[in-house]
């Protein structure tokens, strides 16, 4: 880093100074969007996106195309062929969509319970003090250990899998919500009281919104956990689902199919995370702007 600050936006003086005329920052633009907006050219940007993936895939291909490459690493075209054959068929409806359905159901229930309880605990110091050690313990339990238990209790049906996801995902959401609700700015809370903002409006406009950065962080963690739990609840003991299918392929040494399953899992992870980012960008646009305003950008 010879000239380390070159790529950064101009560092504005931190002290806010008043000018009657419009301030340098144009309204209505999340300041976080100001990335590398230099006239680097579309070519460079394309290279940024594509070069490394192309090199990696190429290297993998070259490696696997050799005759001595080994049985466990099929070539990309073999994986792609298996992928198309496997997932563009009825298996999509038999294995993939039900898995996704359970994943989203579990995640949504966990979000509902986590945020609801989190608000209750966050608003009441006494209840929080009572529940804190218990919650510390419950959230420290690695959720996968519940899979065997749930199987004993509930068998291997959908309910078990959803229950595992809910129980595993609820803690990061709950604890982050508590943190966020506790951190509501006292001045802002006073302001709301002065202007007669109470009850449901207070919850909606003040509490949930000001806790939303933490809530979203909790949801993000929970989403990653939900995918993990979906897969292992199906891998551990199941007769259907994506995780089950992948383990079947592995056990029967259907290697390209196994890879196709892994790739699909990767794609699911990527797509869900991208969708989440999209939602987060909408919900937290203000927060990013606020942060970069604080940083004086």
């Amino acid at each position, binding site marked *: 880093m010879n000239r380390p600050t070159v790529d950064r936006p101009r560092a504005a003086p931190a002290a806010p100074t008043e000018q009657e005329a419009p301030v340098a920052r144009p309204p209505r633009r999340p300041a976080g969007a100001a990335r590398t907006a230099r006239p680097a050219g579309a070519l460079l940007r394309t290279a940024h996106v594509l070069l490394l993936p192309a090199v990696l895939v190429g290297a993998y291909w070259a490696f696997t195309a050799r005759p001595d490459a080994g049985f466990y690493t099929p070539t990309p075209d073999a994986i792609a062929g298996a992928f198309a054959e496997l997932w563009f068929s009825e298996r999509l409806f038999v294995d993939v969509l039900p898995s996704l359905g359970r994943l989203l159901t579990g995640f949504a229930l966990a979000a509902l319970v986590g945020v609801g309880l989190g608000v209750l605990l966050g608003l009441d110091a006494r209840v929080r003090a*009572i529940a804190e*050690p218990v919650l*510390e313990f419950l959230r420290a339990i690695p959720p996968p*250990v519940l899979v065997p238990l749930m199987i004993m209790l509930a068998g291997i049906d959908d309910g078990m899998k959803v229950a595992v996801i809910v129980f595993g995902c609820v803690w990061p959401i709950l604890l982050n919500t508590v943190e966020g609700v506790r951190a509501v700015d006292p001045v802002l809370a006073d302001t709301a009281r002065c202007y007669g903002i109470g009850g449901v409006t207070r919850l909606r406009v003040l509490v949930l919104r000001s806790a939303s950065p933490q809530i979203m*962080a909790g949801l993000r963690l929970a989403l990653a956990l939900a995918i993990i739990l979906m897969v292992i609840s199906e891998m551990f003991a199941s007769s259907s689902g994506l995780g089950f299918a992948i383990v079947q392929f592995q056990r029967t040494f259907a290697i390209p199919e196994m890879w196709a399953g892994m790739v699909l899992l990767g794609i699911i992870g990527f797509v869900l995370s991208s969708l989440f980012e999209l939602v987060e960008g909408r919900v937290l646009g203000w927060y990013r702007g606020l942060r970069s305003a604080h940083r004086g950008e």
Partner: protein
Amino acid sequence: MSTAAVPPAPAPRGARRPGARVRTAPNRPVLGSAGVLALLLLWEAVPRLGAVPERHFPPASEVLATLAERAGTTPFWEAVGHTLFGWALGLAIAFAAAVLLGFALGSAPRVRAFTTSTVDFLRPIPSVALIPLAVLMYGTDIRSTLLLVVYACFWLIYIQVLYGVADVDPVAEQTALSYGLGRLARIRHVVWPTTLPYLMTGLRLAASVGLILSITAQLIIGSPGIGQQITAAQQGGAVALVYAWIVATGVLGVVINLGVRALEHRVLRWHTSVRGESAA
């Protein structure tokens, strides 16, 4: 009690008014103990009263007795040792790799631009997707566990390091430059202290996720450790033992969380005071 993955909060304009938060604090140790006690009583009472069958939900006393009995045996501690070893080694590898790569790429934005798309694609891939590959390549060897733990932990720490390096105050950086600090000195005195809180956040997240994956590997793949013990207990129908192991993993998780938080507190004690001052 914070799981927040939010990077250190933006300093509010103007320091918080002293005394603005000093509402009469409830007596937390007493209330907390009451909460734990209430949970244990409930756990004891529900199966005893027959609200749920004891076969599925043994009372607390039975589970804790089972745990205490097991805790006196060598296999118990061997299993704990295996789990912790996989966790610690995986975490250490991920930490070292993430810090090195994070600092290297974080301070070279032009190179980093080429990696962003790949990172954005690889990062959300659930590490459990690697399970079948791990089984094929390493079987029940510890390397299977390590593969999962390292993959999951690496991204958590790496991303935090990148956030941290990007958060370096340009003014501080320019000050260091103007006083003629060399590149290494700048990393040591400007970049590293700024990144430290982010790094600790990453470590905290990775520590708990690493434990999850360490146990997952044992559950699914069958490498020796707590996960494998739980599978065995479940297949043997030893319900109380399954519960006992779950309690044990919870205790393990709490110990790890407390340990990491103590470390964080120690490492950042000097740091937070400085930050608090500059934020005012």
